[in-house]
């Protein structure tokens, strides 16, 4: 505007808007550069996301399949009694299994040579599993039963591509000839791959049995922890934020509280873990490794997040709504609960779910209060027991698996990450749905 008068240049009238002047061109160039930067940033972000997703899926899928040996098997009462009377009971069952396998192969007309030792290398000690089945289900005696017995983790790894024939060194665990046997059995349809349900539903196994490890028990542990976190942090967080935001006088005390809450949100989680160990377990004598304690610790961690997001969404409600309510003679409390809170609800819920998701993925504090992976050996007996019985949680379980020496556990860790991510995604989707639902109420 001032150009013309400043430089005394040609009058405005003579300037064509079809000609782009230098200043506009520079401005447009800056804008274009900024846009390019933004797109590049997004592209980089997407690239890493894709790399991550591919890595997780590629490494994690083997955990969801398992290799089993399928054998039709009939055990008579007489054989059962005979085996039970022997000193090495499981060895007797292994013998039955081997002869059943041999029978099946001859029936199918396939020539495969195997011995007891190679079967043991292929599948571990099968006798135990068979004995357990028949002692638990005596009704199955004298009737044909199909067993799907898992192979050893190395054979599993062979079919998954983790164990390579070229790099295999003969050991007492697996020899190259065993792989030939495995290939033959696979061709005969006796060794097959199936979906690994025990991984989803099972509990952690010992360090020597990666094939049997499942994440189900720690999912339950995480679930009970989340119940505690939700039940405590949502009401406490929302009540605290409403008080601070709507009722508390603005003075140095509230300022101090505000600063402390913000700082609390930045405290590393391991600090909360050691606090939980000292206060909840050593001082209050709550049970170790219990989801209740884990939930309490995570509540401490989640509270600042919820308070901050709730206060932000309360702040974003226009003050004119409060004025309107007060103006028709509503009390402060009525104004908040009838008008402000419903409007802040989407923000509060999103904040809460983000806080919960954070808590769900938290590992360090759980390790300190004893919720390590190997504790998750089974399911709780009842709903209330779920809170106090020793258990682990998904991320702690994953950490424990990843730290174990056996390569097969490494696959399990990746598989566990997929499960964890599925839960996180579900929670985010719930957050989005809730947000939509509440926002529709203007």
């Amino acid at each position, binding site marked *: 505007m001032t150009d013309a008068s400043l430089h005394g240049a040609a009058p405005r009238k003579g300037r064509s808007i079809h000609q782009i002047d230098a200043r506009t061109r520079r401005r447009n160039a800056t804008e274009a550069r900024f846009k390019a930067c933004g797109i590049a940033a997004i592209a980089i972000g997407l690239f890493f996301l894709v790399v991550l997703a591919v890595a997780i899926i590629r490494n994690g899928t083997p955990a969801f399949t398992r290799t089993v040996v399928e054998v039709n098997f009939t055990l008579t009462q007489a054989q059962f009694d005979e085996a039970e009377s022997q000193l090495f009971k499981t060895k007797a069952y292994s013998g039955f299994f081997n002869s059943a396998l041999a029978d099946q192969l001859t029936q199918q007309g396939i020539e495969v040579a195997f011995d007891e030792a190679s079967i043991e290398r292929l599948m571990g000690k099968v006798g135990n599993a068979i004995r357990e089945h028949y002692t638990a289900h005596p009704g199955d005696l004298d009737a044909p039963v199909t067993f799907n017995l898992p192979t050893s983790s190395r054979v599993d790894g062979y079919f998954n591509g983790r164990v390579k024939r070229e790099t295999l060194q003969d050991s007492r665990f697996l020899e190259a000839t065993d792989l030939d046997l495995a290939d033959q059995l696979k061709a005969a349809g006796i060794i097959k791959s199936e979906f690994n349900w025990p991984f989803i539903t099972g509990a952690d196994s010992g360090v020597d049995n990666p094939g049997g490890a499942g994440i189900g028990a720690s999912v339950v542990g995480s679930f009970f922890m989340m119940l505690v976190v939700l039940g405590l942090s949502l009401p406490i967080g929302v009540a605290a934020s409403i008080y601070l935001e709507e009722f508390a006088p603005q003075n140095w005390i509230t300022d101090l509280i505000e600063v402390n809450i913000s700082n609390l949100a930045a405290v590393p989680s391991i600090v909360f873990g050691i606090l939980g160990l000292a206060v909840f377990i050593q001082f209050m004598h709550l049970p170790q490794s219990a989801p209740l304690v884990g939930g309490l610790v995570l509540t401490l961690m989640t509270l600042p997040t919820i308070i901050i997001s709730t206060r932000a969404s309360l702040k974003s409600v226009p003050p004119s709504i409060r004025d309107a309510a007060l103006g028709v*003679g509503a009390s402060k409390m009525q104004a908040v609960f*009838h008008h402000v809170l419903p409007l802040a609800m989407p923000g509060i819920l999103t904040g809460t779910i983000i806080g919960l998701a954070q808590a769900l993925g938290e590992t360090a504090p759980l390790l300190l209060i004893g919720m390590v992976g190997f504790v998750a050996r089974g399911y709780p007996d009842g709903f209330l027991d779920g809170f106090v019985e020793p258990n682990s949680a998904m991320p702690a379980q994953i950490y424990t698996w990843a730290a174990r020496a056996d390569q097969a556990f490494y696959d399990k860790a990746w598989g566990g990450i997929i499960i964890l991510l599925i839960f996180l995604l579900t929670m985010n989707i719930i957050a989005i749905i809730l947000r939509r639902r509440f926002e529709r109420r203007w």
Partner: protein
Amino acid sequence: MNDMRPMERKVDTKEIKFDCRNVQVYYGDTQAIKNVDVKLEDRTVTAFIGPSGCGKSTFLRCLNRMNDTIDICRVEGNLLLDGEDIYDRRVDPVQLRAKVGMVFQKPNPFPKSIYDNIAYGPRIHGLARNKADLDDIVEKSLRRGAIWDEVKDRLDSPGTGLSGGQQQRLCIARAVATEPEVLLMDEPCSALDPIATAQVEELIDELRENFSVVIVTHSMQQAARVSQKTAFFHLGSLVEFGETGAIFTNPKDPRTESYITGRIG
């Protein structure tokens, strides 16, 4: 419409509704209202006029203690409603605001249905015994707010979906629904077209029979049309207060004169 001469009005003495003595209002350290003494009569429309930022809204908000919501705001002096000090310790501002309703400068309907906007006040004050009662109150209030015909078919749709002028009339209807004794209106017509303005002015005139109305306005014509008393504020002080006719035809203070003739403000 542009006639600046106020109509001749009967002047009869009325009871004093609000007796304000020596009122000072501070926002932190700055004084927004200085030494205001004014007596607002019952069943009268009083107009507050004055240039922008002179403290009209601030003073208006003192009358129903809306200033309590502003932390840094401090009110001194005595404000007596029917002889009772409204800043007394014993006064619950909630009870006061049920008696002294308010319409704000910017329309601020609740983000709820039109029906609920009106019904909210009567509900929390227990003014309706049953649904039919409440329906009556809603209809009566919307009629008084001169908006019934426009919304009677969509009482369930959101109040925030109305146009600005409709929203303001909804807010007026909401304020009268609780049957206040005093109605404070802060520039209620600044978003309205001439027809809606005329309707609101008619409403104000009608409300005068039962309530006292205090209206802040930037329109001299409006002040002249609807009010019986006019108060002119300038830089936080009450410069002149008196019969509307007298203020507009024969202002005593030179500042008032230059304001109403358009030289300051």
